[in-house]
């Protein structure tokens, strides 16, 4: 079971040029809005046509510009969960789900499948409701039921949780994972969603895939400025190599020790807001307090290094409420292992 994609398409502002392969499980594509994520999914589903390239699904050719193959979406066996779920507004929940089974000619089988899907997705009692009468979570479950009764070979999820309230989001993320066995490609701009749901994550920027990595490895070592910011790092600054395990950050006016050897091409460094410590042994420098913002369980403290250049933006330090010092410390530091080296 695998999906192979290698396509190019000219878009308005940039060129979409991507290549990846699924290896079972959930592959996340993490990117800012307008980077070509949704377009990628649409090309796979056959809604948009790439300029050139190939798309293979379980050995079947869905698209091949050289062999002039371009299967219509109806024949691709690709399930697509749209961002707004795209339920047919004039049909009931039951009719919507039956749309996914219109090829099944045996009526008894169809009814049987329908009832199974309704039970599986906890839609009992909602069969006769119309989409506009459902909550966001119910709409999502209906859309998934409709897709899964159609037995797709791969599932494409386009920002599946962005239309939901935040308290529903995490609950449904867990539920969603239990329900499918086929490969999934999920597009998202949320690092939390990617971290929760995807075994592997690819970072996308302006139509290019920067890296496809194990999700945890990606968060531990994003490798590029874009990936670093998309994975949620708030403190990124240009840097240059000054030693085998040392970089200088001119805008911050400090030098930092690193745990990994610094390669020649280093462009920037990042330090996540959680990783500053009052009692760090290394990389500790004088800081000045700028302001703070309260969150339910954390404080976000804005500060600057004493020698920081005036036009560099302030840094963020996230500190849990129970570990917040009574007074703002004179010095802050970060362990060398938490200094992320960025090469692109």
């Amino acid at each position, binding site marked *: 079971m695998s999906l192979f994609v290698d396509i190019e398409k000219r878009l308005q502002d940039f060129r979409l040029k991507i290549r990846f392969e699924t290896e079972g499980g959930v592959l996340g594509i993490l990117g800012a809005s307008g980077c070509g994520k949704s377009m990628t999914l649409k090309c796979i589903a056959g809604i948009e046509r790439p300029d050139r390239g190939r798309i293979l699904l379980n050995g079947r050719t869905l698209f091949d510009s050289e062999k002039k193959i371009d299967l219509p*979406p*109806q*024949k691709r066996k*690709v399930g*697509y969960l*749209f961002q707004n779920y795209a339920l*047919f*507004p004039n049909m009931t929940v039951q009719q919507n789900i039956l749309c996914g089974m*219109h*090829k099944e000619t045996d009526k008894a089988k169809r009814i049987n499948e329908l009832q199974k899907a309704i039970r599986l997705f906890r839609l009992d009692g909602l069969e006769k409701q119309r989409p506009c009468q459902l909550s966001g979570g119910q709409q999502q479950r209906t859309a998934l039921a409709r897709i899964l009764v159609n037995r797709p070979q791969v599932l494409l999820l386009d920002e599946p949780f962005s239309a939901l309230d935040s308290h529903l989001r995490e609950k449904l993320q867990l539920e969603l994972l239990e329900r499918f066995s086929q490969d999934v490609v999920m597009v998202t701009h949320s690092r939390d969603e990617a971290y929760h749901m995807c075994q592997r994550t690819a970072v996308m920027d302006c139509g290019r895939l920067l890296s496809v990595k194990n999700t945890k490895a990606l968060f531990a070592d994003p490798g590029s400025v874009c990936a670093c910011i998309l994975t949620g790092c708030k403190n990124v600054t240009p840097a240059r190599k000054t030693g085998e395990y040392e970089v200088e950050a001119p805008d911050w006016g400090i030098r930092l020790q690193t745990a990994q050897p610094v390669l020649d091409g280093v462009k920037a460094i990042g330090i996540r807001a959680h990783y500053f410590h009052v009692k760090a042994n290394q990389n500790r420098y004088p800081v000045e307090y700028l302001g703070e913002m309260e969150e339910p369980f954390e404080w976000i403290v804005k500060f600057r290094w004493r020698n920081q250049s005036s036009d560099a933006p302030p840094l963020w330090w996230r500190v849990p409420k129970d570990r917040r010092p009574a007074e703002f410390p004179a010095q802050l530091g970060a362990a060398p292992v938490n200094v992320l080296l960025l090469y692109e």
Partner: protein
Amino acid sequence: MDWYPLFNSLRIAAASCILVFFLGILCAYYAARLPRMIKGVLDVALTLPMVLPPTVCGYFLLLAFGIKRPLGSFLARFGIQFVMTWYGGILAASAVAFPLMYRTARGAFETFDETLACAGQTLGLSNTCIFWRIRMPACRQGILAGTVLAFARALGEYGATSMLIGYTPGKTATISTTVYQLWRTNDEAGAFRWVLVNLAISIVVLLAVNLLERPQRTVKK
């Protein structure tokens, strides 16, 4: 009282309404997906009958279908003659009513959420099925409005009709041409009777539309 004009008006309006319904939707559907430039040009051509005086439309129809014109004489060989026949009225009414159907249907299609059609495609539904079961019901209100407008316009058509088929009692007379003819011949009471008939039809049509729309609205909230 001779009821022929009522019968004739109704069959002309009904026939042209059906014709315009399909033709308008077809044109609107394909026009909505054309590139902007071509769409603009086509739009002007297809909407022209709406802004031209109906008599000018009638003039153009006579140019095309007059029995001495190439197209008219060609059709006459098969016994089809639009001038001075009752079914010529269908042609005149359709020409004038078409833009109303076309424009309202196009407006409805343009507000249609294309992701619904894409979702249908990925679920394996055929394009014909998507059109009739998803696109049309979603655009129902606009299409219904267009149909009613087209029917009303066809029923009240005077200018192009009188140019093309004239007024022959018991043959090509419609309500609107009859009203004019009776008024012209000083039969004020006769004209008034037909005015009342016309009013009655219009009210019935409008009431029917309101009744048709209401149940769907409550479902949609």
